[in-house]
């Protein structure tokens, strides 16, 4: 791949804290290598800001290898930028060319309040998982991993659902701010497996109740989530969640 350098204009959302209003600030960066990642470009910009005595831009990141799901940035109108099935940290500057203007915003969702600049609080996801994303395990010695036979197809589907990294791009992309791709994946990865069977009904009910409580919107099957998900999580998981919910809602004695 051809290596080149570029000068860019960045319009970045700056916001002091959750309560303050926030606005876009414009910055120029020079000599950015096409081999840098998007976050490395932000590192360069922040070094520059520190030298100028200004406050650096706050943004979330951790692994920088596409597995932790922290690097939430809405880049030029798309979560995680223009590349498909890709996170911001894995977005390389070769996706842009010299002279480009790039607009960077935080995730916009009632359930994900902005903490500062581009950082949002995604603990709503944690609370949804706490509401039902667990299984019962016997105490004592750990059981042999292969003690329970599992249909290969189901194991594969559960694994694909488990690939969700909880990044929140689905919520960010959805015009309704719905979290149903995330919750669908988290419900599916457990309900498809025999280990997840005991809590199957209460899990669906409790996680969906929590999801609504957090202020996420409702799915109207726009499927923007699937198109923008860095892990290619399928909307089939949303259908499965709807089915689980229907079964649980009709069949259970809990409320």
């Amino acid at each position: 791949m051809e290596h080149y350098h570029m000068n860019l204009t960045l319009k970045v959302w700056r916001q002091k804290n959750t309560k303050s209003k926030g606005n876009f600030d414009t910055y120029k960066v020079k000599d950015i290598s096409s081999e840098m990642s998007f976050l490395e470009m932000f590192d360069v910009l922040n070094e520059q800001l520190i030298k100028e005595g200004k406050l650096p831009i706050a943004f979330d990141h951790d692994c920088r290898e596409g597995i932790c799901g922290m690097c939430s940035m809405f880049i030029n109108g798309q979560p995680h930028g223009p590349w498909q099935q890709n996170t911001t940290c894995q977005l390389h500057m070769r996706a842009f060319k010299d002279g480009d203007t790039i607009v960077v915003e935080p995730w916009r969702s009632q359930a994900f309040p902005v903490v500062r600049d581009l950082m949002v609080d995604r603990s709503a996801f944690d609370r949804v998982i706490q509401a039902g994303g667990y299984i019962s395990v016997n105490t004592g010695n750990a059981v042999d991993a292969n003690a329970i036979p599992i249909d290969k197809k189901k194991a594969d589907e559960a694994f694909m659902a488990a690939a969700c990294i909880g990044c929140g791009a689905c919520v960010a992309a959805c015009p309704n701010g719905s979290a149903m791709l995330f919750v669908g994946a988290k419900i599916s990865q457990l309900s498809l497996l025999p280990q997840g069977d005991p809590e199957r009904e209460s899990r669906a009910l409790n996680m969906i109740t929590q999801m609504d409580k957090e202020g996420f919107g409702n799915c109207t099957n726009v499927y923007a989530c699937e198109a923008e998900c860095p892990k290619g999580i399928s909307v089939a998981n949303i259908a499965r969640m709807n089915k689980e919910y229907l079964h649980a809602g009709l069949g259970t004695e809990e409320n």
Partner: protein
Amino acid sequence: MGLTGFFLITFLIVHCFINSMIFFNDGGETFNHWGHFMGSNLIVRTMELGLFAFLILHIVQGLILWAQNKAARPVRYAMNKAEKNSKWYSRSMGLLGTLILLFLILHLYHFWVPSRFGGMANVQVLETTTLGGYSNQEAHNLYLAMQQVFQNNLLVVIVYVLGVFSLFWHLLHGFQSAFQTFGINHKRYTPIIKGIGVIYTTVICLLFVLMPVSIYMNWIN
């Protein structure tokens, strides 16, 4: 939304099928026969109540959905390339539904109101003996009513075409969406369901568009 949507989809099949009888070119005889059957049948009249209940429910659900989903995204993006990840009509179900509703008000005013509340009885009563089957009952000549509404009335025809156009996009999303809502998403069957949805939507909307257009153009008599 899914359940009420399914019901409305089923209604549209019956509605479209019966109205298509005007294409028999028999001066509306077959159409009037079935129109009378539907209008004078207790079961159908009961179902009509259900239809209105479901339509209102569908609209109320839609409004609640719209309000909740708007609240879930209070701050809009300055730059949003939604066209890269989804279809415009999937994102515009509320708008399309509202356009359909506006059209429906006019539509009900044209046919349903006069037929139910007497406006039609004075001018367009048929002797049912000519319709066969029903002895000595009065039946509305709904075919004549159609002609009176559409003939020489370009503006009304255009509004009807636009109404059906909105319905087309609403159903193109809605048909497959209703299955997903009920948890049906299958590697083999979902592409078939989507295909049937496209065919259903196209056929229904084409027939509905043809009705006012062919009456206006005098293609049928």
